[in-house]
C-alpha cells in the first residue's frame, strides 16, 4: 500500500471555502454608466444584480455588451453609478489586485503569442493572475484538460485552428478558478460539436461560479444559461429565465424559435422596427 507516500495531499476544503460570503450578489450595478471612447455612453444607467449561475448577455450589435463586460473585468472604470463585484466597490484609482485574482476574463479579441505552446501561454496567464507558483503546473493542466486540449498542450499556438485558440482562451480564463467568469463571445469559431461541449462546461462552471456570457446566438442561451439578461442601447430591457423570454414573444413576432420571437418582441422599440439593421 502506498497511502501516505504521495507528495502533497489536497485538503478537502480550506478556511476560505467555508467562510460566509460578505455579499448578496456576485455582481451588483446601480445606475451604472460606462463610457466607450471619449463621448459615447455605451452603458447608460444600468441596474443589474447577478448571483451564481450562467447568465447569458444578449443584445444587438452595439448594445454595449463588450463595454459592460470590460467594466466588469475592471479594465474600464465606471463613469457614474456604483458597481460592486464580490462586495468590493469598483472605481477610483485602485488596482483591485485581490478582486482581479478572482475574476476570469476572455476578451472578444483574444490576442495570444504565436510562438508559445498552449501550456506556456496558460502558464504565463496563470503567472499574470498571481496563482501561487507551486499551484501553477496543476492548475494549468486542469484548465487545459477541461477544455479538451490536453493532447495538444505542447503544440505551438500558431499550429492551432481557430476553435482551438478559442478554447485556449477559455482555459486561460478558468486557470485561476475564478468566482466571476466573464466570457465575451466565447462560441465564435467553435464547430457544433465543440459548442455542445462548451455548453456542458458552462453548466458545470455555473454551479459555483457567476458566469457572464455575452453572445448574439439565441440558441446558446437556450441551451446553457440559467438566466437571460437582454440589453439594448446601454440599458437593461429584460432579465429572467429563458422560458420567460420565450413567453414574451407571440406568433406575430419575427423569429424561428420561441426564444427568437421573445427576443424580437422585447427589442421592438419605436426606433427598431422591422427591416432595419
Amino acid at each position, binding site marked *: *500500500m*502506498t*497511502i*501516505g*507516500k504521495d507528495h502533497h*495531499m489536497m*485538503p*478537502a476544503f480550506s478556511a476560505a471555502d467555508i467562510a460566509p460570503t460578505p455579499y448578496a450578489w456576485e455582481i451588483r450595478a446601480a445606475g451604472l454608466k460606462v463610457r466607450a471612447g471619449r463621448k459615447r455612453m455605451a452603458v447608460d444607467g444600468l441596474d443589474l444584480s447577478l448571483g451564481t449561475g450562467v447568465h447569458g448577455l444578449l443584445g444587438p450589435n452595439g448594445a454595449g455588451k463588450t463595454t459592460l463586460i*470590460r467594466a466588469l*473585468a*475592471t*479594465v*474600464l*472604470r465606471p463613469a457614474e453609478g456604483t458597481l460592486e463585484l464580490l462586495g468590493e466597490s469598483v472605481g*477610483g*484609482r*485602485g*488596482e*483591485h*489586485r*485581490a478582486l*482581479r*485574482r478572482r*475574476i476570469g*476574463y476572455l*476578451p472578444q*479579441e*483574444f*490576442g*495570444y*503569442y504565436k*510562438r*508559445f505552446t498552449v*501550456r*506556456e501561454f496558460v*502558464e*504565463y*496567464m496563470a*503567472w*499574470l*493572475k*498571481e496563482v501561487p507558483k507551486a499551484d501553477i*503546473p*496543476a492548475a*494549468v*493542466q486542469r484548465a487545459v484538460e477541461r477544455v479538451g486540449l490536453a493532447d495538444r498542450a*505542447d503544440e505551438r499556438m500558431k499550429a492551432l485552428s481557430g476553435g482551438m485558440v478559442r478554447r485556449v482562451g477559455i482555459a*486561460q480564463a478558468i486557470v485561476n478558478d475564478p468566482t466571476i467568469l466573464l466570457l465575451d463571445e466565447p462560441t465564435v469559431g467553435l464547430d457544433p460539436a465543440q459548442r455542445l461541449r462548451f455548453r456542458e462546461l458552462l453548466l458545470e462552471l455555473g454551479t459555483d461560479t457567476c458566469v457572464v456570457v455575452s453572445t448574439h446566438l439565441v440558441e446558446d442561451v437556450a441551451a446553457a444559461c440559467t438566466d437571460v439578461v437582454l440589453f439594448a442601447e446601454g440599458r437593461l430591457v429584460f432579465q429572467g429565465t429563458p422560458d420567460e423570454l420565450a413567453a414574451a414573444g407571440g406568433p406575430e413576432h419575427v423569429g424561428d424559435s420561441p426564444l427568437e420571437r421573445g427576443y424580437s418582441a422585447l427589442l421592438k422599440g419605436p426606433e427598431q422596427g422591422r427591416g432595419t439593421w
Partner: protein
Amino acid sequence: MRMIDGYARGDTDMATDEVWALEAHLEGCRVCRDRLSAAVMAQATAAAAQASGVAVRGPDDTGWGPDVTALVDTVWSGLEPQLAAIVPTPRRRRWTARLSRWLTPTVVPWLAMVASVTLLALLLDLVDTGYPGSGEVSLVLLLAPVLPVLGVAASWSRGLDPAYELTASAPRAGLYLVLRRTASVLVVVVPVLSVSGWATGVTAAQWLLPCLAFTSATLALGGVVGVHRAAVALVTVWAGVIVAPTLATSRTTFALQTDGLPAWGLILALGIGVVIARRGAYSVLGAHR
C-alpha cells in the same frame, strides 16, 4: 498514535469531533499518514493470521478484514499502470517562456533594432567624416534619450502586444508590470549605450540622465494618453526641438551639454512623481492606447 490505531480499527467509541480533528490533521501531516498506513498494514496481517486459524470470522472483529485490504490492493494495482502512463508535466521551461515574465515576446525584434541603431550611430561617430554636417556632434548623444522610449512603447502598446487586453485585466498589471518591462528594456539599452558612450568619449551622465528622463516622461504621459501615443509625441518633440537644430547648426545644443543636466534631473524626478501618483491608471485599457 493511540488515536490512529483506533481510527484504523474503525472504533465506534471515538468521539465525532476527535475523528474530525484527526482527519483534518491527517490531510496536512505526512508522518501521521504513514503511521496510519503502517497501522492498517499491521492490523491486516494480524487479521490474516487470525483468519487462517479461525474458519469463520465476522467482519466486525477487527474492522479491516483481509478482504478490504485485498480490495484496496486490487484497485491500486488496477490504477498503477494508468498512473504510470500519464506523462508528467514537462519540467523544462524554454527561455522564451521565462523571458515573457520580463518582456513581451513581440518586443525582442524592437530591442534588436534599437541595439543596431545605436551601433550604426557609433560607427558613424567613429568614422566622423561619413556624415555630412555631423561635425563635432555625437550621434549617439543625439539618439540616446529616445532609444529606450521606443522599447518602452513597444512593450506597452495595443498594436504590438496582441495580449494587451488580457494583460491589462490581470491582477499583476499596473505599475508593477510597467516598471518590470521598462527595467528590462533599460537593462538591454543602457549597456549598449554605455559602450557607445565610452567609445565616443561622452560622459555617462550626459546621455544617461536625458535617457532616464525621457523614459519616465513617457510613462507619466502614457498614464494619461496611452504609452504608445506618449512615445510618438515625445520622439517627435525631440526630433523637432533638439535633433533638427543640432544637425542644422552642427553644434551640440545647450540641452545636451553638461550645463543642461539639472534640467534633465528635474524632468526625471517629475516623471517619477507623476508615475507613482497615477499608478492606478496603468491597470485600465487607457494606458495601452
